[in-house]
């Protein structure tokens, strides 16, 4: 104690202690935590200078969140969420935050490379973009000349374009259409196509917008919302808003204890592929106990409650228990809770639909929302809200001849192609390819039985010329003849929209920096190729790609969008990144609010909207109420009122799908027991999963993300492991009929005892030194390529083992989706000679799987046997027709 400070330290502390209780009541200081700032600007920590802020749309994954790139000296130094974006509301996920490392990755391909050695030998010579585009144009011209000479448009289908992530807003389709080729193969059948096909004929769009934020009850089937699934970052925020803020109950079904299970009130682990049985049993309870919304079913669907009750009769909770392992009493209880808690919604992602007959499972889950009247309600199961943008005129007519690769006739209902079949179709000679181009595509890693893609791409007879547009040396790109590298997503133009919020938005992807080192975005490459392919315009190709650059092309795509022009048009988007601006984010609640601090409401009941007199002009109304214009349904008349309705032929929700029945499929949602359900007692079902910091394939080369997650041991239940003598960390062999992999066991209760789960994103054989962890294999200094960061800071020596080679090809005959979770395996302790990372997979075995899966198609011999209940003339199913789809 001294005279200036007569109080002892103890005294101070006592005062402090007393103040602590009332501290928050003392009012705000002038200092506020930085996180409370809304963002939107950033300063250099060294100079204090305001950094240049450029809005863009993320594309590390496919959710298309809005971001702001901070640029200093022409260099991206930081990425942040765009606070004006209604979808992600100012936040990016870990992947989004790390995205700029893609741009500066020293293993990025920065100049076109021409193969000089054998395919895959790794011998290249650098060439210029000019030389490369000339070369590709010449290869394409050869095919087109042959087609012209033979007067055979089908020859043009020898130009094949295969894409993975295509966010070009129709630019690839435009190029292919201009050249007259229909051989376009997207990746959707390894993604969620049977979800889309379960939904589209039911109500129009291919996905739901579950209004988690306002819901009171969320039932999620196989969709890991807080980590991955669709609308990852936006949906994760809304689910937390609902569960924490709105006190909603969350029930989660997933054979694996994903992080979404952690915030759930109840987690159930159904046997893989049985979600549909559970959903049908819940519907059975809801119908039998008269908990359904009678008026909604009668008014807005094409079935009656009586028909539904009769259809669901055999799907008792006891039946579902026997299939799924989930107790009948829980199924009953949850069905009652779901039907009586308002509002409620389901959400489902790949869990239910990525099986053979996954389309039925998705339709069954969708039906739960319909019979409880939760469709288009606040807090319910809503239609997705997107905004359209087209391609500018003149538009190419497209290929004249249908392509078997682009639309396999054996899958007439699979409107999102059956891309898994491409190598088999080519190997069997069902289709021909002269020039293959790939964009954001890595089949030799990302596909089931990925070794088959490797075999295809290595075969110079089947693929005489292969041009990859990849900026990374992926498993595919390694096998290319020519690589014309695209830029990364932060250096190019694309139009965007994604229904990640109930308020629709339009976004822009724009170069936040000039393409690094004068690389060239794909659009420029396409423009140059078209100009060289058709220099005088006589082939009629050049006119469709007559743009100065990517910016001019995308600007034309945004022209004529109602309302955008008044707000400033394309330049508004360049400045703000997203349109319209609904309000600003409340820093405390995270919601978008107006000037008065009130949340900006979304529109509900879209199907109820009445059509204006102008919209009704030139329409006819059919007996079932469908309002038609130019052969298309534009609404539905109900009780004398003209409503917007749903995007189906009748304008109503079609629980009964006539289009499915035509091909011998059950028109109603049903459950089909899969062969994996009948596996032997000591076998397991192999499932895969995505993790929160990675995409399937591309992010393994991103340093921040690779450090967070880089190895993927196989999840196995302690009981199962004990029975097999396997301990945590043991070397194990996982064997399917295709082959085996040698990996390690992660023994955990968070997995169904009949299941083994292995994540994607690991175990690359290509994709740069970090993804391959090459520097650990070959310790010679020079292998580091001078990247001392990798040398010193990569402390891990395990890159994981990829499960795809042993996953069997098996496809849903309705939606055409790959059954990722249908492979039966045996798991055993590794054999003495096994080494971690060993992979053995047989092309012959995969060829057999292809033949086997064709047997399930509507033309196959197992189809009728699996659909005995369908009452149609089996002798007269529709003829095979290339270019089916819908």
């Amino acid at each position, binding site marked *: 104690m001294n005279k200036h400070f007569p109080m002892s330290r103890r005294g101070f502390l006592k005062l402090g202690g007393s103040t602590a209780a009332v501290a928050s009541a003392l009012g705000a200081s002038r200092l506020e935590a930085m996180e409370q700032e809304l963002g939107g600007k950033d300063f250099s920590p060294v100079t204090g200078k305001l950094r240049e802020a450029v809005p863009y749309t993320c594309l590390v994954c496919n959710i298309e969140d809005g971001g702001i790139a901070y640029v200093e000296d022409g260099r991206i130094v930081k990425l942040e969420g765009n606070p004006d974006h209604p979808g992600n509301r100012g936040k990016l996920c870990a992947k989004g935050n790390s995205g700029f490392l893609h741009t500066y990755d020293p293993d*990025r391909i920065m100049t076109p490379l021409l193969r*000089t050695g054998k395919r895959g030998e*790794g011998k*290249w010579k*650098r060439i210029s973009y000019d030389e490369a585009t000339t070369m590709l144009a010449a290869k394409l011209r050869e095919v087109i000349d042959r087609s012209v000479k033979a007067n055979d448009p089908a020859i043009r289908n020898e130009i094949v374009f295969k894409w993975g992530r295509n966010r070009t807003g129709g630019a690839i389709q435009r190029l292919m259409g201009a050249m007259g080729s229909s051989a376009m193969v997207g990746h959707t059948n390894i993604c969620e196509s049977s979800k889309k096909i379960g939904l589209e004929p039911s109500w129009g769009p291919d996905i739901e917008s579950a209004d988690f934020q306002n819901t009171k009850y969320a039932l999620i089937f196989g969709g890991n919302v807080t980590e991955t699934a669709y609308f990852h970052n936006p949906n994760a925020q809304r689910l937390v808003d609902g569960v924490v803020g709105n006190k909603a109950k969350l029930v989660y079904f997933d054979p694996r204890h994903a992080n979404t299970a952690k915030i759930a009130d109840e987690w159930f682990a159904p046997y893989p592929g049985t979600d549909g049985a559970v959903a049908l049993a819940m519907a059975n309870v809801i119908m039998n106990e008269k908990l359904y919304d009678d008026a909604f079913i009668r008014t807005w669907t094409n079935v009656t409650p009586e028909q539904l009750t009769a259809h669901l009769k055999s799907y008792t909770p006891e039946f579902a228990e026997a299939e799924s392992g989930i107790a009948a009493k829980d199924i009953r209880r949850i069905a009652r809770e779901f039907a009586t808690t308002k509002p409620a919604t389901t959400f489902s992602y790949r869990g239910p639909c990525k099986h053979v007959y996954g389309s039925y499972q998705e339709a069954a889950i969708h039906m739960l929302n319909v019979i409880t009247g939760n469709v288009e309600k606040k807090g319910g199961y809503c239609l997705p809200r997107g905004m359209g943008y087209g391609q500018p005129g003149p538009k190419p007519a497209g290929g004249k001849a249908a392509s078997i690769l682009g639309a396999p006739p054996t899958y007439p209902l699979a409107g999102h192609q059956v891309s898994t079949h491409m190598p088999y179709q080519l190997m069997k000679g069902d289709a021909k390819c002269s020039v293959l181009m790939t964009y954001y595509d890595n089949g030799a890693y990302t596909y089931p039985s990925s070794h088959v893609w490797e075999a295809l791409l290595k075969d110079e007879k089947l693929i005489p010329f292969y041009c990859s547009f990849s900026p990374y040396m992926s498993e595919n790109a390694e096998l290319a003849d020519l690589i014309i590298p695209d830029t990364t997503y932060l250096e190019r133009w694309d139009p965007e929209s994604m229904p990640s919020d109930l308020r629709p938005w339009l976004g822009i992807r724009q170069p936040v920096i000039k393409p*690094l080192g004068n690389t060239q975005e794909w659009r420029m490459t396409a423009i140059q190729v078209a100009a060289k392919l058709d220099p005088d315009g006589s082939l009629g190709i050049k006119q469709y790609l007559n743009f100065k650059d990517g910016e001019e092309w995308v600007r034309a795509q945004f022209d004529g969008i109602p309302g955008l022009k008044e707000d400033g048009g394309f330049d508004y988007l360049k400045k703000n990144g997203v349109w319209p601006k609904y309000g600003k984010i409340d820093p405390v609640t995270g919601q978008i609010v107006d000037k008065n601090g009130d949340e900006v409401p979304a529109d509900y009941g879209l199907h109820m909207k009445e059509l204006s007199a102008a919209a009704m002009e030139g329409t006819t109304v059919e007996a079932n109420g469908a309002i038609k214009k130019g052969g298309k349904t534009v609404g539905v008349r109900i009780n004398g009122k003209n409503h917007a309705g749903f995007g189906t032929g009748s304008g109503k929700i079609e629980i009964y799908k006539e289009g499915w029945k035509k091909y011998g499929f059950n028109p109603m949602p049903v459950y089909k027991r899969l062969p994996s359900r009948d596996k032997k007692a000591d076998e397991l079902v192999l499932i895969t999963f995505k993790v929160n910091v990675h995409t399937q394939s591309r992010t393994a080369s991103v340093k921040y993300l690779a450090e967070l997650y880089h190895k993927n041991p196989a999840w196995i239940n302690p009981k199962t492991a004990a029975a097999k003598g396997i301990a945590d960390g043991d070397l194990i062999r996982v064997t399917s009929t295709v082959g085996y992999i040698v990996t390690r066991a992660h023994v955990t209760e968070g997995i169904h005892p009949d299941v083994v789960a292995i994540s994607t994103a690991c175990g690359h054989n290509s994709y740069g030194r970090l993804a391959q962890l090459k520097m650990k294999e070959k310790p*010679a200094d020079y292998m580091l390529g*001078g990247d*001392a960061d990798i040398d010193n800071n990569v402390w891990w020596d395990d890159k994981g083992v990829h499960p795809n080679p042993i996953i069997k090809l098996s496809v849903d005959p309705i939606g055409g989706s790959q059954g990722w979770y249908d492979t039966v395996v045996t798991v055993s302790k590794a054999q003495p000679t096994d080494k971690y990372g060993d992979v053995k997979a047989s092309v012959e075995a995969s060829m057999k799987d292809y033949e086997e899966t064709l047997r399930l198609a509507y033309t196959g011999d197992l189809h009728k046997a699996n659909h005995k209940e369908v009452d149609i003339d089996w002798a007269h199913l529709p003829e095979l027709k290339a270019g089916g789809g819908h």
Partner: protein
Amino acid sequence: MQTLIEQVAQGARLDECRAQSALFRLLARTLEYEVDEAFLSHLRNDLLEALAEAGAELPEDMLSGPSDALFEKLAVEYTALFVQPGAISPYASVFETGSMFQEQCDRAARWYQENGFVFKHRYSGEFPDHVGTMLSFVAALFEREAQALEAGEEGNAEEIRQSRERFLIEELGSWAPGWAKLAAQAAQHPFYERMLGLVERVLWDELTQVVPPRRMRELTEKNSRGPTVIKKDPGFRKASGL
């Protein structure tokens, strides 16, 4: 009026500058672009003996014969070494930070600009902090110094000399010799192996001329180190994976 001794000394310095300029230009040319007809002809003719004396003898397969296959072979080696993924990245940014186009790049560009040069790329994916381009800048400064000496602009020549030495120490000294050593190990064709060896030796030689011995130790260390190592805390490791 210069004394005779001064004149002789200046003549020697002039000659040395010219020789150094040519040497650095040769090294820069080797690293910046693939071997072409004109370059091969110089290597085979005017430079043959000097190269051998400098310990970078032209390999057997480059001495004579048809050149197309040879150009192809060398282009493939060049691409594998310096261009394609997995290569020895020739950029200061990558060597020092693990990313392309970082501050090192801006610094190099500023040096060029301040001395009246602009960086022009021929292929995409080329940046100002390419080791070859930096060596060609050293060559240009040697040449300018020679010109100044020739014109009797002693003060100017001195300024250029200081500038060059500073560039060499600040922008190349801490990494380029180390890089050249690694690159030589990675080379599979003796031409690049030998030329990269030469780059390393020439750089060390030049640095020894201009750097006090005390600093040399520091530079030697820098050339064999990377950025700061993250502490390998076992807890950190555990939290980062399963």
